[in-house]
């Protein structure tokens, strides 16, 4: 840990949120500039921290967006893009139906897409399929990526394969939500079982 790191431990830690290449090149400079600003007697320390607290989130967002956009256009293989798009589309009905239901003050509970069979499709089957496809592609990408990194480092390099990572995280979120919802107390904890015994599960949901 350098002298500047120990002087601004929180700021130094937050710099780890920048892309690695940016942090390696400009991280120390940013700490040095912050130190210069605070050492300048013409500046108010509160003002410096206030400005820095506004500047950091904006800059972090911008640099990470530039980083992921750059990765998508230069590094992401076409099959990853296609699978991300396809599996992302499988998650779309969940958001559409939940949003529509919320917008119509929950009047859609009586409509056709709120009947148990249809719910099971967009709430469990489609997100589970998206999760399985995205995870399998992620594993394939991690094992075939041409970089001097091990399989395991690739597997946890979520930012380098962010389109699939987003699909995996969102589908896990939806599935967790589905199983945590109060109407799903009768669904067994295994999605495969839930699909297999769908008649009894739906009956249970219907009658409580």
């Amino acid at each position, binding site marked *: 840990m350098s002298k500047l790191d120990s002087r601004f431990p929180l700021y130094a830690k937050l710099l780890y949120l920048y892309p690695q290449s940016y942090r390696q*090149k400009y991280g120390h400079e940013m700490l040095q500039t912050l130190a210069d600003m605070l050492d300048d007697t013409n500046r108010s320390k509160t003002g410096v921290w206030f*400005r820095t607290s506004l500047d950091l989130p*904006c800059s972090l967002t911008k640099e990470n967006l530039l980083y992921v956009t750059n990765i998508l256009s230069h590094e992401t293989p076409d099959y990853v893009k296609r699978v991300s798009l396809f599996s992302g589309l499988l998650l779309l009905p969940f958001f559409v139906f939940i949003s529509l239901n919320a917008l119509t003050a929950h009047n859609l509970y009586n409509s056709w897409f709120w009947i148990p069979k249809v719910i099971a499709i967009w709430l469990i089957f489609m997100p589970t399929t998206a999760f399985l496809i995205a995870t399998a592609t992620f594993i394939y990408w991690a094992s075939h990526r041409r970089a001097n990194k091990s399989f395991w480092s690739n597997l946890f390099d979520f930012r380098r394969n962010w389109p699939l990572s987003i699909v995996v995280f969102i589908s896990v979120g939806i599935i967790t939500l589905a199983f945590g919802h109060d109407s799903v107390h009768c669904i067994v904890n295994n999605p495969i079982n839930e699909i297999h015994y769908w008649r009894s599960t739906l009956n249970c949901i219907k009658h409580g």
Partner: protein
Amino acid sequence: MSKQRSNMLPAVAFNILLALSLKPRHGYEIMQQIEQDSHGRVIIGPGALYGTIKQLNDDQLIEELPSISSRRRYYRLTKKGLDRLGSELSYFEHTVKLAQQRKLLKQNFGRSR
């Protein structure tokens, strides 16, 4: 005209080039010069400063000097950067002349008083 406007540098990038037109500077000196040149209107933090420096460096409008100090990196304007600054300034010069012809500057000055 719209094409020329869309190719213009963002305010922070323009101010960095302007600050480096006098001499090579390190990050904090650039920040101070920008505040001085803009009469305190342009105030930036370390994130915006180095994000823009990176962009200008990638576009080869500025370059890093061989290490003078181990603590700080110094940057200077390249030939391409100087040309770019010149074209930006000539646009502003044209705009100011136009504003003077239309007596916009005087009107605004009168209003602000």
